[in-house]
């Protein structure tokens, strides 16, 4: 290998890399930075590097109503609230359930979707759950930080009805479901809406529903100036055909 050629190559490579750092564009419209965790179909996921799902389409419509340019920031679900408070994002739309604990950290818009917790099992499983306490006999998987995981922790583990080892926590539902289908878990607890989405992809069935009546809402910083604007826009959207179209696109 030629020395000078090698040197030149290294220089070109480093210059290219440094410039790629500064290649961020500028835009005129005010930007609405929307945080999400795009690993949660049918609410948020990516297809060919494009963000899709109910929340993502809703964000788009919301951006039009507010006359702001929507920019999606994809991150860990656990990171969304810290990112809001660190001013990395303006709002979080990630099928986030309104809870008292979260309310201590962030503010919420009016709810836009309501779900229960579904208990899912492999399609060929013969586990039967007739009442909630039947769950204590099985090992359950959940995405860490979700209401399902918190529900099991609060109602079973904290009350000593269940051993800590019976609840496995995963970064996302995908790992939980995969682990269940691999035979390492009996059941997975998951939002009923997501259970519907996953059913299209994997051999799973919902065997029990815990009526929790949770509400999904948009999370905002507590000092956010956007709350009124977003609530007004959201009310209009929820009444419109656009919203029915979005829902029909992803869940039927």
């Amino acid at each position, binding site marked *: 290998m030629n020395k000078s050629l090698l040197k030149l190559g290294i220089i070109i490579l480093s210059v290219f*890399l440094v410039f790629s750092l500064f290649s961020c564009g500028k835009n005129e419209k005010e930007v609405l930075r929307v945080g999400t965790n795009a690993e949660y179909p049918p609410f948020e996921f990516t297809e060919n590097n494009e963000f899709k799902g109910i929340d993502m389409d809703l964000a788009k419509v919301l951006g039009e109503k507010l006359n702001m340019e929507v920019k999606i920031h994809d*991150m*860990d679900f656990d990171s969304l609230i810290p990112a809001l408070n660190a001013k990395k994002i303006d709002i979080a739309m990630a099928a986030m359930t309104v809870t008292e604990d979260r309310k201590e950290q962030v503010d919420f818009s009016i709810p836009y979707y309501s779900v229960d917790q579904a208990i899912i099992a492999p399609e060929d499983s013969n586990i039967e759950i007739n009442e909630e306490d039947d769950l204590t006999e099985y090992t359950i998987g959940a995405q860490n930080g979700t209401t399902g995981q918190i529900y099991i922790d609060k109602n079973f583990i904290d009350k000593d009805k269940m051993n800590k080892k019976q609840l496995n926590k995963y970064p996302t539902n995908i790992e939980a479901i995969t682990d269940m289908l691999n035979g390492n878990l009996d059941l997975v607890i998951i939002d009923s809406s997501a259970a519907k989405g996953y059913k299209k992809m994997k051999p799973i069935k919902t065997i029990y529903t815990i009526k929790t009546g949770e509400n999904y809402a948009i999370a905002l910083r507590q000092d956010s100036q956007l709350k009124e604007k977003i609530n007004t826009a959201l009310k209009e959207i929820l009444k419109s055909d656009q919203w029915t179209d979005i829902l029909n696109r992803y869940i039927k």
Partner: protein
Amino acid sequence: MIESILFVFENMPLLLKGALVAVELTVLSILLGMVVGLLVAILRLYGPKYVKKLMKIYEWVLRGLPILVILFIIYFGFPSLGVNIPAFISAVLGLGLRSSAYQAQIYRGAIQSIGVEQVEAGLSIGMNRAKTMLYVIVPQAIRLSLPGFTNEFTIVLKDSPLAYALGIAELLKQGRNIIVTSFRPFTIYLTCAIIYFLLFHFFYYLFRKIAEVYEVPGYIMSKKS
């Protein structure tokens, strides 16, 4: 099987895009680590006493923290001090500064391994200290530090997936995005593993070539290090 291969090919552009981000992240972090690391190494060897101590603490602290903790402090912690750094730059800072602590050790070791008699020889033929460093010590030290540097480079490359925690769409994150809709973890993770390994191998080979090209015949470096 064939279906799996087709599936991988279909998603290859996305994965390669992620791989490019991983390489950018690694190279920029290593460059930052090199600049800071060299400075730390030189200050620790030739600086005033309190600076030496300070550099020692710097190395000590950064080597003692898990990389994920460093990344979280920079990305989520600093904003409460009023310093808001974008995700990509946070990742480069975290990976780069951590690497600087290790690189400082590599360079310090390399400089120290060159005997004092060579400095004395340089001074005795009329070179000043700076010239002795530049023409006698540094050229040897660079060669001596290459194996350690190569190792450090591959470590940063293999740590780059942690940037995913800050939402950076590097290779692993792109892989996960595909898994979410396709539900094929094995195929995708295996493909990611192969890409990481090929990247590792490419850079390993590149640095070995550089070592060979700049080798001084008869000098201590061996070809197959």
